[in-house]
């Protein structure tokens, strides 16, 4: 009996000696606390198709973006299916800090200059601190410099301001979605075109087709359009191809312009009528 007791006692005392490497690993895991992992690469680049994504530039990162939007595919062979009428936007975006990106651009469409600021307010994360979505505040001011009237009207009448709250969630490594509630303020607008302030809600997403390719889509629903509205909601479909430091994007959209005040509020293309523009973006990050 006493021998049994001693043996049992020895067994219990010595039991914890017999740690195998797996037990050592469990010991390691027990001793380390979970960390917060911030979601990365919700989208491949700073643009979904026409819209901005929640991706901002990291500190001291510069992005050069060349965007093209051609004419309508249904404009026939003489116009080379729209390729002859090319609109281009050249833009630069720079990360002042991890959370603040600023940018400038020039559009050949109506010779419009635009400036933008993107502020990263909320980052999606998992682990110790779990946050289900990312949120970025986007604002832009644009000035149309096309001389279409004589005398040239004052600058204030040619200014447009955009505010967007971009809310996105990476649901899975290959699937992300984004909501874009937007407000575009037009300083000067014709009465039949509606209010100076246009409210719209955009929705978009992307599905990764392979490690470096994704299919993107977006749609904007304009909320307070006037009864006499002749325009259409913007819809776009795109493919992203990412290679190292470049992102190539191929687009099909019913919008002619490439900045928010253009594609959200001034889309005159009827998708069902075949008013589709082909376009492509090339983005390079330095």
């Amino acid at each position: 009996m006493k021998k049994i007791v001693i043996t049992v006692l020895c067994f219990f005392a010595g039991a914890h000696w017999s740690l195998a490497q797996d037990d050592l690993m469990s010991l390691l895991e027990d001793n380390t606390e979970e960390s917060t992992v911030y979601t990365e690469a919700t989208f491949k680049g700073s643009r979904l198709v026409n819209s901005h994504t929640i991706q901002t530039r990291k500190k001291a990162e510069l992005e050069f973006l060349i965007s093209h939007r051609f004419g309508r595919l249904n404009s026939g062979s003489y116009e080379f299916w729209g390729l002859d009428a090319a609109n281009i936007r050249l833009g630069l975006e720079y990360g002042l800090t991890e959370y603040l990106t600023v940018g400038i651009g020039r559009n050949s469409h109506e010779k419009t200059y635009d400036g933008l600021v993107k502020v990263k307010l909320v980052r999606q994360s998992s682990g110790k601190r779990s946050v289900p979505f990312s949120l970025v505040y986007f604002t832009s001011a644009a000035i149309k410099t096309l001389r279409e009237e004589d005398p040239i009207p004052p600058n204030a009448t040619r200014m447009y301001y955009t505010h967007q709250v971009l809310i996105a969630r990476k649901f899975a490594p290959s699937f992300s979605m984004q909501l874009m509630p937007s407000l575009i303020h037009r300083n000067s607008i014709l009465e039949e075109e509606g209010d100076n302030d246009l409210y719209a809600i955009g929705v978009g997403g992307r599905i990764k087709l392979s490690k470096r390719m994704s299919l993107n889509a977006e749609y904007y629903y304009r909320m307070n359009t006037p009864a006499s509205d002749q325009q259409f909601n913007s819809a776009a479909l795109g493919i992203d191809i990412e290679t190292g430091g470049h992102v190539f994007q191929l687009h099909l959209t019913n919008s002619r312009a490439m900045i928010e005040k253009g594609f959200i509020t001034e889309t005159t293309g009827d998708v069902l009528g075949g008013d589709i523009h082909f376009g492509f973006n090339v983005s390079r990050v330095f």
Partner: protein
Amino acid sequence: MKLLIKSVLLAIIITTSQAQAQEKYMTKEGHIKFFSSALVEDIEADNHKVQSIIDIAKKEVVISITMHDFQFEKSLMQEHFNENYVESEKFPKATFKGVFTSDKDFVLNKDGEYQVELVGEITIHGVTKPLKTKGVIKMVGSQLEAQTTFELSVADFDIEIPKLLFQNIAEVVKVTVNFKYDAL
């Protein structure tokens, strides 16, 4: 008398088992660096949050590496590393489990340098491969330092390098390990 024997035996067992516990060391700030040179640009990253436990008595070591903690100089390179190469969302940690032999027996609480040979298995990107390397363990005061260097082939771990980027990314990566352990 028998009670005395029992108590002494128990006391010996308890004290020696406590002594065994002294032979485990742990770090949560281990440093692993990997480097590969290629025509276009060198690829280099440092991880200063590697976790490891080493057991001097059993001559066992385990290492747990959080892939997200590798810091690159270029943030775009870091993003691609995580998203496209090691797919850290699917495989957040790399691990190593192994045993080692040393040229001489370990003497605790005394400064010394030991040449060791480490044999084990490393798991990266969900793929486990055997790993064998030589290293040095130094006892410095109450700390234990361990260093080793070895090479890994990227393709061994199903890490795809697309043809386009062939020029950028080398196939062989040099890994440098430098841990400073404290007694657990």
